[in-house]
C-alpha cells in the first residue's frame, strides 16, 4: 500500500494509455473491429467522466484511473475449484457464465441449458455467426442512447464479451448466472465485461450477475450489459454486489423493450468501494411494463450511486420503481431517477420512489427524481425521503421488551425485505436475505 503516499493519476494520459492498449489488441478483434474502432474514437473524443458533468456530480471516477492500474490480459490461473466458493445457490441446474478480468471464459463456463432454449458464446465469435446482423444492429445501443466516455472505453474492448440468446417461445426455468471475476493478485486490476442478451419473442429468462474480486489488491470493473427484449418476452435481471471495500464498479445495464414485454430489474448493493450503477429501461413499444427495484445497504466508506432512466416512447406503458437505501458509518448513497414520457406516450403510468435511512451522522444520501413529461394524459408520481429510523416504531417494539439493538435490526430488515420480495428466484432471494440478515444481525 506504499503507493498511497504518491498516487499518480492518468488524467489525460488515460487516453494515450488505452489507445496504446487498443492498438496491441486490435489484431484480434475480428468482426467487431469496426465497432471497437468507433468506440475508441468516441472515447478519445469524450474522455473520462468528471464531476463537472451533471450525471457524475457525486461520483468521482477519474481517481480510479491511476498509473498503477493493471489492464491485464485474461489470466488463466483461475480454476473451477477457485470458483466453487462464489457460486450462487441453485447453480447446479443453472448455466454459469464466467468472466475473468472482463473477458468471457468459455472453458470455465458451464452451459446447462439445451441449445434449443439458450445459446451463450463469445461475442466476437457470435458476431461472425447466425446472429451477425442482430449484433451489428444492436450492440452499443446504450452508447448511442447516452454517449459517455466510460461506456465507450468498455465498447472499445468489447471483443472479449458475451452473447446470450433466449430462444423464441422458450420458458427457460433455470436461471443464467454470470460471475464477473477480477483477479487482483497482479495489482490494481481493471476489467471490462461486456454482454449482449437477446430475448426472442415470447421467451422468458432469469439472469443474475455477481461480482467477485480475488487477491488482496483493488479492482475496478467497468461493465456494459445490454438486453434486447422482443414482443411478449419476460426478463428478470438481478445484480448482486457484495464485494470487499477494495472493489470499484461502474456498470450500465441497458434494457430495451423492442416489443410489448415485461422486464424486471433488482439491484442489490451491499458493499464495495465506489459503485456506480446505471440502469436504463427503454420502452419502445405500446403496453410495455417494467419494474425496477434497488437496495443499497452501505457502511464503512462505501459510495453507491444508482442512476436510472425509464424512457417511455409509446402509449399505455407502465413502470414502477422503488429504491431503498440504508447508510451507516461514513458511507454515501446517491439515487438519480429519470423518467421520460415522450410526446406520443399518452396514458403512461410511471411511478418512482426512493427512501433512505441514515444510521450515522457521517453517512449521507443524495436523491434526485427527474420527470420530463411531454405528453398530456399521463399518471406519473415520484417521491423521495431521507430520514432516521422511525422513532415511534422503535418505541413500540421496545415497549414489548425487545432490546433497542434487536428492534433496530427488525425494523431495518423489514425496510429492506420489501425489495427482496421482488427477487422471484427463491434460492437467490434466500441467499440475499441471509447476507442482509447477517449484516443487520437479524436472527429472528
Amino acid at each position, binding site marked *: 500500500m506504499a503507493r498511497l503516499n504518491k498516487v499518480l493519476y492518468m488524467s489525460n494520459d488515460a487516453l494515450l494509455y488505452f489507445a496504446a492498449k487498443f492498438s496491441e489488441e486490435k489484431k484480434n478483434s475480428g468482426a467487431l473491429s469496426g465497432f471497437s474502432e468507433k468506440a475508441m474514437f468516441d472515447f478519445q473524443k469524450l474522455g473520462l467522466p468528471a464531476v463537472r458533468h451533471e450525471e457524475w456530480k457525486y461520483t468521482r471516477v477519474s481517481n480510479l484511473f491511476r498509473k498503477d492500474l493493471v489492464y491485464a490480459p485474461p489470466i488463466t490461473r483461475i480454476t473451477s475449484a477457485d470458483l466453487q466458493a462464489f457460486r450462487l445457490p441453485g447453480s447446479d441446474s443453472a448455466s454459469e457464465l464466467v468472466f475473468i478480468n472482463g473477458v468471457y471464459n468459455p472453458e470455465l463456463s458451464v452451459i446447462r441449458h439445451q441449445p434449443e432454449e439458450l445459446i451463450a458464446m463469445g461475442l466476437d465469435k457470435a458476431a461472425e455467426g447466425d446472429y451477425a446482423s442482430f449484433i451489428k444492429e444492436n450492440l452499443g445501443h446504450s452508447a448511442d442512447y447516452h454517449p459517455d466516455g466510460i461506456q465507450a472505453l468498455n465498447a472499445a474492448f468489447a471483443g472479449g464479451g458475451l452473447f446470450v440468446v433466449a430462444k423464441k417461445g422458450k420458458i427457460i426455468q433455470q436461471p443464467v448466472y454470470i460471475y464477473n471475476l477480477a483477479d487482483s493478485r497482479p495489482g490494481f486490476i481493471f476489467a471490462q465485461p461486456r454482454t449482449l442478451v437477446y430475448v426472442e419473442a415470447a421467451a422468458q429468462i432469469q439472469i443474475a450477475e455477481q461480482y467477485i474480486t480475488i487477491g488482496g489488491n483493488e479492482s475496478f470493473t467497468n461493465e456494459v450489459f445490454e438486453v434486447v427484449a422482443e414482443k411478449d418476452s419476460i426478463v428478470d435481471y438481478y445484480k448482486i454486489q457484495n464485494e470487499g471495500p477494495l472493489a470499484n464498479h461502474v456498470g450500465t445495464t441497458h434494457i430495451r423493450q423492442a416489443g410489448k414485454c415485461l422486464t424486471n430489474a433488482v439491484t442489490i448493493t451491499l458493499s464495495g468501494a465506489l459503485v456506480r450503477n446505471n440502469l436504463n429501461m427503454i420502452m419502445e413499444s405500446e403496453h410495455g411494463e417494467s419494474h425496477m427495484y434497488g437496495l443499497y445497504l452501505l457502511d464503512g466508506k462505501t459510495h453507491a450511486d444508482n442512476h436510472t432512466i425509464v424512457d417511455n416512447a409509446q402509449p399505455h406503458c407502465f413502470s414502477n420503481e422503488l429504491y431503498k437505501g440504508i447508510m451507516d458509518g461514513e458511507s454515501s448513497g446517491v439515487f438519480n431517477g429519470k423518467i421520460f414520457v415522450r410526446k406520443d406516450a399518452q396514458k403512461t403510468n410511471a411511478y418512482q420512489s426512493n427512501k433512505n435511512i441514515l444510521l450515522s451522522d457521517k453517512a449521507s444520501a443524495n436523491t434526485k427524481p427527474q420527470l420530463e413529461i411531454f405528453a398530456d394524459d399521463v399518471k406519473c408520481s415520484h417521491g423521495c425521503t431521507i430520514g432516521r429510523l*422511525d*422513532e*415511534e*416504531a422503535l*418505541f*413500540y*417494539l*421496545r*415497549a*414489548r*421488551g*425487545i*432490546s*433497542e439493538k*434487536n*428492534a433496530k435490526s*427488525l*425494523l431495518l*430488515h*423489514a*425496510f*429492506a*425485505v*420489501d425489495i427482496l420480495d421482488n427477487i422471484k428466484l427463491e434460492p437467490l432471494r434466500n441467499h440475499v436475505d441471509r447476507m442482509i440478515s447477517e449484516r443487520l444481525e437479524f436472527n*429472528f
Partner: protein
Amino acid sequence: MLHIKNLHANIEEKEILRGINLDIKAGEVHAIMGPNGSGKSTLASVLAGRSNFEVTEGSVEFLGKDLLEMSPEERAREGMFMAFQYPVEIPGVSTTNFIKTAVNETRKHRGLEPLDAVAFLKLMKERMKLVEIDQSLLSRSLNAGFSGGEKKRNEIFQMAMLEPRLAILDETDSGLDIDALRIVANGVNKSRTKDNAFLLVTHYQRLLDYIVPDFVHVLYNGRIVKSGTKELALELEERGYDFIKSEIELAAQD
C-alpha cells in the same frame, strides 16, 4: 405494585403533568378519566418510557424498583405493558416473529428458557381464543393494513401473550364498535388475577360498563383532582367534565 409520587413531566418545555400521586396494588383495576388535554395519555407514555417526555420532579416505583431509571424494554421485561392508543403499523415485520421475540426476551430476563416453536404455537393458539383474533391476522405484517378494531385486539392479544404484572390501556376503547369493545373487555377480564393490575385510561365511561374498575380517578390539568369508585365514572358520564371544572374553580376561589 406501582407508587407514583408527585410526578411532574414536560413535553418541549411545557408542563403537562403537575404532581400526580397514585398507588396501585396487585389485583386492582384503576381507571383514569379526564377531558382532552388533561394529561391522561402523557401519564401512560411517561410510565411506558417514551423518550420525548421529560420527568422534572417526583418518583415512580414499580415492584420495588425505580421505574424512571429503566429503558422502555426493561420496564416491559419487569412486567409493565402499555396497550397503545395508536398501535404502529410496521410492514415487513411478521406479527408472529415479533411476539415470539418479545416473549422470549422477557422470559430470558426472568431467567426462563425460551419457548420452542411448539410451545410457543400452543400458547399462541390458547391466547388467540381470548381475544377472538384470527390466525390470518397474525401471519401478516405487524398491524399493517389492520382495521382500528383489529389493531386494538392485537394489543390485547400481545398483552395476553406477555402476561404483564401491570397493564396500562391507553384509550383502548376509542374507535371500537360495540362488538369489538366487548371482545377487548372480555380479553382483559379473563386476564385478571390477584397478582396483576390494570390501569385503564379512557375518556368515556362506556368501557367501564364492561371492565369494572375498583377505583376511578379524574385527571384535570395535570393533576388527579378527584378519586372514587365506579360510581364516580357514572356521575361524570351524566354530568360531563364541566362539573369537575367548576368544582375546582370554586375550590380555587376559597
